[in-house]
């Protein structure tokens, strides 16, 4: 046939086309050539000569569809009149609607293809304004105003004639169906398909729209569905509350939430799933959250993990739902932590403190990972609680917080020679870092740690040097280079000293110089070691020590320039062989004690004054302490009860001891622990000032000019790693830097500083 436009008789062609249209919309068979003819008919009408008759075709088709749908609607009349509560009639209506819709929408699809030419060429897609299409606007769309593709037109006609008339009764019955699914859960698969199909017809009928395609579904169905569901959840909740414990209630709610989720997927459009869930949560969880909270305490203290897991699952999606639970957990950890470290007694307070606290931490860390999915909110509550316990001033009933000291002591006890294996020690060190990190005054810890480290290194008490380094690196990782700088310098001093000793021995050998004693010297750099004020006690070194000292100093000055050495005799010790008539003894003691004994090589008795004068030991306390230790060991005897200047001291020639090798444990630096603690705190204060000054210089150097408050903020954020400085202390440091002319106040403002280059 020709594609050329030709003159046609509309009524004739339409009459022919209409029979096909009728068959298509009712899904009756259409022969292939008949279909092709009809397809051409649409074309020839649209391109008819002298004028195209497309508008007329559109109008006729529309009229046809309207009549078709209206006659379908008439069939429902019976059901609408008869609607009552019998299941049968309800099902009948829904099933009938669904099958009518199914057929219609399918047929409409074919019809749309049949009208392809009209759709594509004639109907200029005109923007359908929202207002006109809105459900409820009703009435006809005049062709002049608006033309739609035939498929869309058909859907719209269905909406206007079918849904607007039947909608309310359909929805009412759908809701009854859903209710039945909730209560009896005995819907047949046909029932389910129908409900789903009917509900989705509200979406599909406007699916072609780009915007607002869910409006009809939401307004007509979803709102009512949520309302009815809400009522149902509410009544379920109050029913459950009458018989259930919290634990049972939670299980029930979780089950219901689960079922509702399945139900939503089964019947509804995807956009309703979340809303239905929310409705269920609101009615069953939020409305009764205090009931849920009421057994928190019991669940936590009796470790009811399943209940806690359920509680978390239920409260997680609720706004602020977890707040109360988290707050409760925080308090619980605080109480348990405080209890575990309060009133500790005995020698091992430091061990108990760290290990008890670790136990609490691990317990709750584990709880949070197993029941609260490692929720960051819970983890941060754990941190808060632990930090609060560890930094509490009340942790042992005294005024100062001792945790920094205790943790340092704990580390000291691990790193000292003991029976534990290296890997055991390392594991414990690693774990304890958790506790260390909570300490606020890390500089206090550092001070204690460095004192203990110094003792271990000087007196060769470390398990091994590798572990010392491991620990320093752990601290560095946690607090940065600056924090461990001095510790690291101490550690390296020991290595350097070993190296120096080897070189010195080689040097002596080269010179054929034999010292006849086993000499080992540790060279410490001043400033890095926390050795306290009593650095050098004046002392006339006995000649036995003089030569090694001289030789070493000569050697040292060859190696380094501009350095001087001072000998810390109070930290030295040695082995003295005492040869007596019956036996010889090898006795380990301190340098001062050796010096005293050596005086008796040439005489039997000496007065205290003599000893003091020869050794020039002017520090009486020091003198008494060491002399007393020799008397206690019975190597020396004294003729008075109390040691006085005039007392006569004699060497005990009858001395005898079962062991030939032993140690005089003189009161090695007997600072009382309390004094030592106080000293440490004073030093921390001094160091803080120096630290703050360096920080201020650093900040000012890079910023050049800065307001007072901005400077304070910077300092606070920088010092956070090791301590929280007080504002007055910062101010003092600023003043002192102004005095030293590192910074100055700017001319135009009193609260602004500038860097002096």
């Amino acid at each position, binding site marked *: 046939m020709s594609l050329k436009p030709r003159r046609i008789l509309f009524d004739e062609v339409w009459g022919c086309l209409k029979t096909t249209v009728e068959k298509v919309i009712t899904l009756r068979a259409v022969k292939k050539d008949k279909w092709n003819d009809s397809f051409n008919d649409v074309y020839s009408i649209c391109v008819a000569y002298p004028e195209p008759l497309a508008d007329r075709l559109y109008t006729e088709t529309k009229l046809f569809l309207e009549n078709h749908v209206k006659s379908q609607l008439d069939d429902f009349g019976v059901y609408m009149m008869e609607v009552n509560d019998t299941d049968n009639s309800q099902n009948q209506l829904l099933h009938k609607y669904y099958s009518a819709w199914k057929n219609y929408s399918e047929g409409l699809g074919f019809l749309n293809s049949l009208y392809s030419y009209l759709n594509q060429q004639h109907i200029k897609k005109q923007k359908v304004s929202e207002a006109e299409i809105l459900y409820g606007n009703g009435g006809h769309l005049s062709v002049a105003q608006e033309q739609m593709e035939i498929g869309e037109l058909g859907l719209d006609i269905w909406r206007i004639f079918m849904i607007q008339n039947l909608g309310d009764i359909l929805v009412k019955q759908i809701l009854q169906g859903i209710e039945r699914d909730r209560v009896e859960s005995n819907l047949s698969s046909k029932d389910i398909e129908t409900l789903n199909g009917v509900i989705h017809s509200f979406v599909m009928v406007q699916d072609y729209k780009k915007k607002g395609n869910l409006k009809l579904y939401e307004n007509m169905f979803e709102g009512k569905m949520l309302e009815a569901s809400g009522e149902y959840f509410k009544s379920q909740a109050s029913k459950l509350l009458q018989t259930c414990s919290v634990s049972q209630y939670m299980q029930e709610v979780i089950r219901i939430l689960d079922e509702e989720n399945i139900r939503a997927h089964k019947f509804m459009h995807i956009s309703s799933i979340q809303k239905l869930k929310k409705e269920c949560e609101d009615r069953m969880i939020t409305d009764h959250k205090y009931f849920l909270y009421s057994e928190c305490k019991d669940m936590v203290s009796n470790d009811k993990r399943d209940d806690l897991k359920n509680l978390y699952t239920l409260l997680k999606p609720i706004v602020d739902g977890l707040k109360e639970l988290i707050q409760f957990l925080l308090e619980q950890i605080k109480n348990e932590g405080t209890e575990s470290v309060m009133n500790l007694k005995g020698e091992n307070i430091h061990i108990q403190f760290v290990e008890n606290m670790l136990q609490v931490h691990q317990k709750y860390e584990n709880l949070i990972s197993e029941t609260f999915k490692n929720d960051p909110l819970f983890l941060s509550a754990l941190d808060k609680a632990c930090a609060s316990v560890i930094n509490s001033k009340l942790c042992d009933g005294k005024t100062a917080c001792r945790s920094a000291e205790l943790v340092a002591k704990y580390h000291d006890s691990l790193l000292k020679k003991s029976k534990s294996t290296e890997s055991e020690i390392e594991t414990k060190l690693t774990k304890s870092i958790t506790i260390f990190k909570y300490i606020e005054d890390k500089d206090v810890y550092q001070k204690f740690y460095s004192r203990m480290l110094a003792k271990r290194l000087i007196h060769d008490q470390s398990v091994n040097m590798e572990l010392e380094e491991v620990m320093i690196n752990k601290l560095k990782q946690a607090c940065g280079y600056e924090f461990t700088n001095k510790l690291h310098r101490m550690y390296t001093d020991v290595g350097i000293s070993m190296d120096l000793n080897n070189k010195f021995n080689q040097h002596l050998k080269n010179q054929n110089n034999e010292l006849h004693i086993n000499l080992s010297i540790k060279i*410490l750099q001043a*400033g890095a070691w926390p050795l306290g004020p009593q650095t050098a006690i004046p002392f006339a070194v006995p000649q036995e020590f003089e030569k090694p000292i001289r030789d070493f100093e000569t050697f040292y000055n060859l190696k380094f320039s501009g350095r001087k*050495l001072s000998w810390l*005799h109070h930290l030295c010790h*040695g082995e003295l062989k005492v040869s*007596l*008539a019956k036996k010889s003894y090898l006795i380990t003691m301190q340098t001062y004690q050796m010096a005293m004994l050596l005086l008796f090589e040439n005489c*039997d008795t000496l007065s205290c004054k003599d000893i003091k004068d020869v050794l020039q030991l002017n520090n009486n306390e020091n003198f008494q302490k060491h002399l007393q230790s020799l008397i206690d060991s019975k190597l020396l005897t004294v003729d008075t009860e109390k040691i006085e200047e005039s007392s006569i001291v004699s060497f005990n020639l009858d001395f005898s001891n079962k062991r030939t090798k032993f140690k005089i444990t003189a009161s090695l630096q007997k600072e009382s622990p309390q004094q030592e603690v106080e000293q440490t705190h004073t030093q921390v204060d001094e160091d803080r000032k120096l630290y703050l000054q360096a920080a201020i210089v*650093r900040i000012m150097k890079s910023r050049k000019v800065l307001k007072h408050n901005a400077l304070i903020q910077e300092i606070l954020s920088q010092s956070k790693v090791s301590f929280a400085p007080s504002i007055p202390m910062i101010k003092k440091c600023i003043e002192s830097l102004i005095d030293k002319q590192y910074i100055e106040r700017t001319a135009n403002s009193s609260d602004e500083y500038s860097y002096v280059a």
Partner: protein
Amino acid sequence: MSEDNDKTSYDSDSSKPDKMFTLKKWNSVAMWSWDVECEICAICRVQVMDACLRCQAESKKDIQSKDGACVVVWGECNHSFHHCCMSLWVKQNNRCPLCQQEWSIQRLSS
């Protein structure tokens, strides 16, 4: 010695009249510091043993910078300072801040 001989029954000890006390072993500890008259640098008021204030401020991020960075300098007048501090000082005034003698370097620390 002579007195010893009287008291000790040295015949039991087969060896020669040995000394009664013999030093076998000595573990000693010494501290090194710069050989300076004044331990505090007069320019920055920090101990010369520590790095000067400016170096401390900078070394913050340094990894293990051997303390070599901030050495000590001695003038012919035997006064000593941080080398860093003195280098800045002489730019303005080539005299020792302590004795006002013309500054000339005697040695640097190692």
